[in-house]
């Protein structure tokens, strides 16, 4: 009747709730709100320095100063990165997941292999591909040379570096998406396929009309994770090209301006607010679209 007791005791759960709430406000919500506020100020990373409101000056600097061309390129790069990573990563992951969902010999081994890059971590992955893509003596360049008689500069090429980073990002996180798809696939009841088989569905039809709608929730999760993940990726860029050779994205710029730029914190704050807004738009659109497809039989 009274699971939380009577009288003052009723407030105990609320009190206990206060602790995590306070932690959340102090360490998460507060700083986020402060970032928005800082984006309108000339705050500096120096103790005791004064701070004053400068209105939209930081935003103006972002888009109408000497290097705004690069900002726009960062935004375009971010969007390209997000679209390609989201589509290819999920496409490949779904394909691999469906393959591994069949009873294969050694399927656990394959799963482990595909998931391995996720466990390796960015620094190791960057190191591996840095060596693979070494322009002087890397194996990939030898292969290119042998196959096409062509050599590439890889991470030091103004035109190709970004493409290679996208490739590495997909290689690295494909296993993660695959795992989520696999979980989804394994929850699809077998009897539906049997029913379909009796009705004479082809392989494609049973995938299109049984599997796909039923794993839609995994699809939503994967879409969201890869959109947000791709839009906020800076670590792999930092570790491979360090933003050189036209490979900067918004998240990389935020990192760079915050930790390596000037002591001014207003501009990077403004930059992260803009980044947040862009991510928000895409996430909302993606959620609405994918939710529509989710069904239950």
């Amino acid at each position, binding site marked *: 009747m009274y699971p939380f007791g009577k009288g003052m005791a009723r407030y105990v759960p609320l009190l206990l709730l206060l602790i995590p709430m306070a932690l959340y406000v102090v360490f998460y919500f507060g700083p986020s709100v*402060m970032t928005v506020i800082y984006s309108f100020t000339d705050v500096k*990373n120096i*103790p005791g320095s004064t701070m004053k409101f400068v209105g939209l000056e930081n935003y103006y600097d972002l888009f109408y*100063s000497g290097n705004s061309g690069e900002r726009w390129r960062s935004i375009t790069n971010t969007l390209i990165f997000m679209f390609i990573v989201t589509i290819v990563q999920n496409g490949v992951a779904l394909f691999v997941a469906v393959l591994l969902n069949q009873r294969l010999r050694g399927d656990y081994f394959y799963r482990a292999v595909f998931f391995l890059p996720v466990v390796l971590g960015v620094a190791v992955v960057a190191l591996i591909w840095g060596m693979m893509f070494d322009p*002087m003596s890397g194996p990939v360049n030898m292969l290119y040379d042998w196959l096409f008689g062509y050599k590439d500069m*890889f991470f*030091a090429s103004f035109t190709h570096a970004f493409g290679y980073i996208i490739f590495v990002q997909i290689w690295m996180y494909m296993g993660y998406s695959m795992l989520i798809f696999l979980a989804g696939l394994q929850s699809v009841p077998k009897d539906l396929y049997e029913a379909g088989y009796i009705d004479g569905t082809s392989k494609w039809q049973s995938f299109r009309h049984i599997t796909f709608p039923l794993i839609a929730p995994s699809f939503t999760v994967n879409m969201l994770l890869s959109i947000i993940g791709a839009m906020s990726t800076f670590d792999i860029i930092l570790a491979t090209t360090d933003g050189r050779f036209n490979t900067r994205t918004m998240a990389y710029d935020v990192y760079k301006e915050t930790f*390596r730029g000037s002591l001014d914190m207003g501009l990077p704050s403004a930059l*992260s607010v803009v980044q947040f807004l862009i991510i928000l738009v895409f996430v909302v659109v993606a959620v609405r679209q994918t939710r529509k497809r989710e069904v239950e039989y």
Partner: protein
Amino acid sequence: MVKKISAIVLAGALTLSLAACGGGKGNNAATGTEGEGAKTSSGQKQVIKILHWKQDNINKAMNEINKKFEEKYPEYKIEYTTTGPDDEYKQAQRARLTANDVDILADLSGMRLSPQEWTPGAKVPDWEQWINSGLIADLSDQAFVSKWNANDIEKAGTYNGKVYAIPTGKVAMSGLFYNKEIFEEHGLEVPKTWSEFIQLNETLKSKGITPIGVAGKDVWPLKLPVFALQAKILGGGDQQKWIEGVWKGETAFNDAEAVEVLEKMKTLQDNYMIEGFMGIDYASAPAIFATGKVAMLADGSWDAPTIATANPDLKFGYFPVPATEDAAKNASFVGKYDVTWYVAEKGPNKEGALKWLEFFSEPENYTTFVKAAGFIPTMDGISTDSDFIDNELTPYLGDFELAYEIMMINRENVGEHLAAEGVHTEYLAPGGEFKTAKELADVQQKEWEAAAPK
């Protein structure tokens, strides 16, 4: 990944809020440690915190000096922390200094790039902001300052008439290491003029030897030979005049001299540099030179110890890139001050820090340091016993000038073709998009004008 980005925002915001608290607390903390100091002198050791970056040869010497210091002053204990170089170090510098968690910190170069009257809207460098915020101790009254070369202290350690920093050595940046065996074998001599230099490159090429190696992947090593070109060509050999000129609109990034700089570097990149130089990273460049794959290597004088380690039998020298046809003008290095010590005003143990710096300034200890570092000493009467410094660097030190990146005061938010005080010849074809030097120069001038303060 979601967490990562929020973590950054969070970290940024947190640093700020912490920083804000730190300001108020600064004074209390300082008095607090004084009291503590008195207490601990009887038994416990006082810690002196030194922040530096990783560089094996120097770190080793520092450990040696620190050990000797602790032996002489048993009441102190030194906590010597090193981080990765460059950006990682700058990050650590900021964090530790703003948290009053460091007593002595090294800077990557001497004081530089302070805004002038003729640079409206220029960014105030970190060190200047720190001094203005009272975070750096004034060393003017310390006796040990007089042990250092007065000119070097004036140039690299003085601000507003007060001494705030001790530059511990100079390095040459504008030279080329050359393989003496290859040169001797083909009867080649160190070139004194630009045309001799081109001739030398042609000869090497005709003999099937790659003339020049450079670590293009890191981009900044490309700046090094350009520093020679800039110092000797811009402003007719007066870089300072040219730099003031671009601010005042009297000279330009696409004027004849600036284009000549780019064109000469383009000539080297297109014809004489090792194939695929844009793919070589800095760490592997010394090995390429030490194994005789290239006859010359564009690198700073600080890398001499690394080259010697890579191949102890290699005989090599170092000469300035001959930028012009005037042999006398070419015959000097362009460089910068390296490791420069600052003492934190509000650190936990300023007293100890000053004592350490005094100890470091004793000729005997400084010699240990400068020998290991391979710097050109900034203290008079120091013998480094280094053949490389005595025979290869000293003959060209007469007219030692600071490099463009040390002198060039940039406009805020300047475009990427000018950012980080570089010339950015990596943007030239075939790697980059600009077919000619003039095209790049025009874009640079446009970006410079676009960044003009409004």
